[in-house]
């Protein structure tokens, strides 16, 4: 370090502590701002990162294939044949896991209550590694085969229907012949799921049991698959569309557009929040530096009289700003790291965030730290903080020495 830089650093550091209370207050404000920026980014990212994974794991997958019209009207009429050899080959080559499902709207009726649900006929083996249901059973058992006529329902749905494990319920839907299709099922398992809408809105049976009830033959409602990487599915989509030109092949971003919109909106909200916090912080920073510069006018005149170039005076004030900002960043980041670590096991907002559930979001937030967000927050504070400090620094350097020295 050159002697001049060392001198500036010593002056900057010691000058900061001439007024410990003032320095402490602005440090607290800076740290608070950085803490809020990083923590909020962590929580927001947690929602954004967790939600697509949760939606994908719930039933969405990375890609879904349907008969044309199914997405607008998901009835039995819009079913499709099981995948042919060409489509199977693409699925086998490009997907980590895939499953063919029957999925239709239905009504489930217990002895006391009824509820509108989606009946999903699954191949229990295919769902492993694809959806949440194999690991979500909390009472009873998981389905054993495509012919399994046992019914899996959500625990909360069971409460709502006032039924329980081992009891029978009737499931009704429209059959392939447009006649009412209904059948009694014994509840063989209860599952938990987030969000609650999944737990109350879906019931699962073996796929063939569903096909028999709906008189569908071998036809299915959808194929869902997961690819090796969520955000690199373009070429797989092309191959799937080539293999199934008559079917509707869609990525998760089109199936769950709200998630994408939410992510974009959240990014904008984060940037706005960063700017609001920074603006508040910068007023404090500039005010502190201006007060320091005003109080030390005579000293700056002395520095000039002793031969310090104006740009070094600018450097000294900026040095004070850098130290303040660096300490504020260190404290703020440390506080944010502790906060996010404390919230690692999840922040439960269920008591006052029912809207989350209605929108399909989990009420429990798991923070997710994105290096880019932390870097952006830190760089924003550092760079804009230095820019904001230029004015006080310029003020300090523009004094005529003789007038500055005359100040009392």
């Amino acid at each position, binding site marked *: 370090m*050159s*002697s*001049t830089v*060392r*001198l500036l650093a*010593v*002056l900057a550091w*010691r*000058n900061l502590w*001439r007024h410990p209370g003032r320095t402490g207050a602005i440090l607290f404000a800076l740290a608070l701002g950085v803490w809020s920026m990083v923590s909020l980014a962590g929580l927001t990212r947690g929602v954004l990162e967790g939600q697509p994974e949760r939606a994908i794991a719930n039933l969405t997958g990375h890609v879904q294939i349907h008969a044309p019209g199914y997405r607008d009207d998901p009835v039995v009429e819009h079913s499709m044949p099981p995948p042919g050899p060409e489509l199977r080959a693409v699925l086998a080559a490009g997907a980590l896991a895939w499953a063919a499902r029957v999925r239709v709207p239905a009504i489930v009726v217990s002895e006391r209550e009824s509820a509108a649900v989606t009946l999903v006929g699954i191949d229990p083996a295919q769902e492993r590694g694809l959806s949440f249901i194999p690991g979500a059973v909390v009472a009873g058992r998981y389905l054993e085969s495509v012919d399994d006529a046992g019914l899996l329902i959500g625990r909360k749905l069971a409460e709502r229907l006032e039924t329980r494990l081992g009891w029978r319920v009737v499931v009704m839907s429209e059959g392939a012949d447009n006649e009412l299709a209904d059948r009694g099922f014994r509840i063989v398992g209860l599952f938990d799921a987030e969000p609650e809408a999944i737990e109350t809105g879906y019931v699962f049976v073996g796929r063939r049991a569903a096909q028999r009830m709906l008189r569908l033959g071998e036809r299915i409602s959808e194929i869902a698959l997961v690819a090796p990487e969520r955000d690199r599915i373009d070429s797989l989509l092309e191959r799937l569309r080539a293999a199934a030109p008559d079917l509707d092949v869609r990525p998760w971003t089109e199936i769950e557009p709200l998630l994408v919109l939410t992510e974009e909106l959240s990014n904008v909200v984060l940037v706005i929040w960063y700017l609001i916090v920074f603006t508040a912080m910068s007023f404090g920073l500039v005010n502190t530096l201006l007060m320091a510069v005003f109080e030390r006018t*005579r*000293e700056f005149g*002395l520095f*000039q*009289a*002793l*031969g*310090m*170039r*104006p*740009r*070094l005076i600018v450097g000294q004030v900026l040095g004070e700003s850098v130290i303040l900002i660096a300490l504020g960043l260190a404290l703020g980041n440390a506080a944010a790291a502790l906060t996010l670590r404390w919230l690692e096991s999840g922040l439960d907002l269920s008591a006052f965030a029912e809207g989350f559930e209605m929108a399909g979001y989990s009420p429990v937030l798991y923070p997710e730290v994105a290096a880019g967000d932390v870097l952006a927050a830190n760089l924003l504070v550092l760079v804009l903080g230095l820019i904001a400090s230029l004015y006080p620094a310029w003020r300090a350097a523009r004094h*005529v*020495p*003789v007038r500055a*020295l005359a100040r009392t």
Partner: protein
Amino acid sequence: MEPTVVCRKVSKVYRQDSVAVHALVDVDLVIPRQDFLCLYGPSGSGKTTLLNLIGGLDRPTSGEIIVDGQRIDNMASGALAQLRLHRIGFVFQAYNLIPVLTARENVEFVMQLQGVPAAERRRRALEILAEVGLEGLADRRPAELSGGQQQRVAVARAIVSEPALVLADEPTANLDSKTAENLMQLLVHMNREHGVTFVFSTHDRLVMDFSRRLIGLRDGRIVEDRRREAAA
């Protein structure tokens, strides 16, 4: 030998509430090397203004000022700062030490800006502090020193890098007579041993007694310029 300072027809006019105040009027002055001179006169006579102009702390309204061979009245502020850094030392009436630095660091301040290596800086600072009688007080901050001690630190800072010219504005104003005399003896010593040119502005009889040349100012004009035998 080239003089340390040359002033030609130097005038300075201040504006106070649209009234022009003529602080200096057509001052001509030549200060040879190793001179030890005193500007005296009543308040408002222009002593401090002349000192500030010679030190490049302010600019004349008209006229020409040459310091150490360089014309400074139209010099850019960066170059002027460099000239002050390397060729001019200042001693102020109010000491003007840097409060966050110790006595040694205050003395090192100018050398640090000059880029003198740390070890040499430290050695020279401690030497000069010992020379001004502040041995053992090097690590004290200004607030922990008496007025006389602070003024000696300021003198040490002004002369440590052996400038061509030291400008001292009322250097004894806040000192008791004993301390003031010691300080003046020190400055005479520096003048003789290190060949530094000293220019004082003062009301103090003691400073005038030590000076070899007295320049009287009144209403911004030089009214007397005489050489004399100094007290020490």
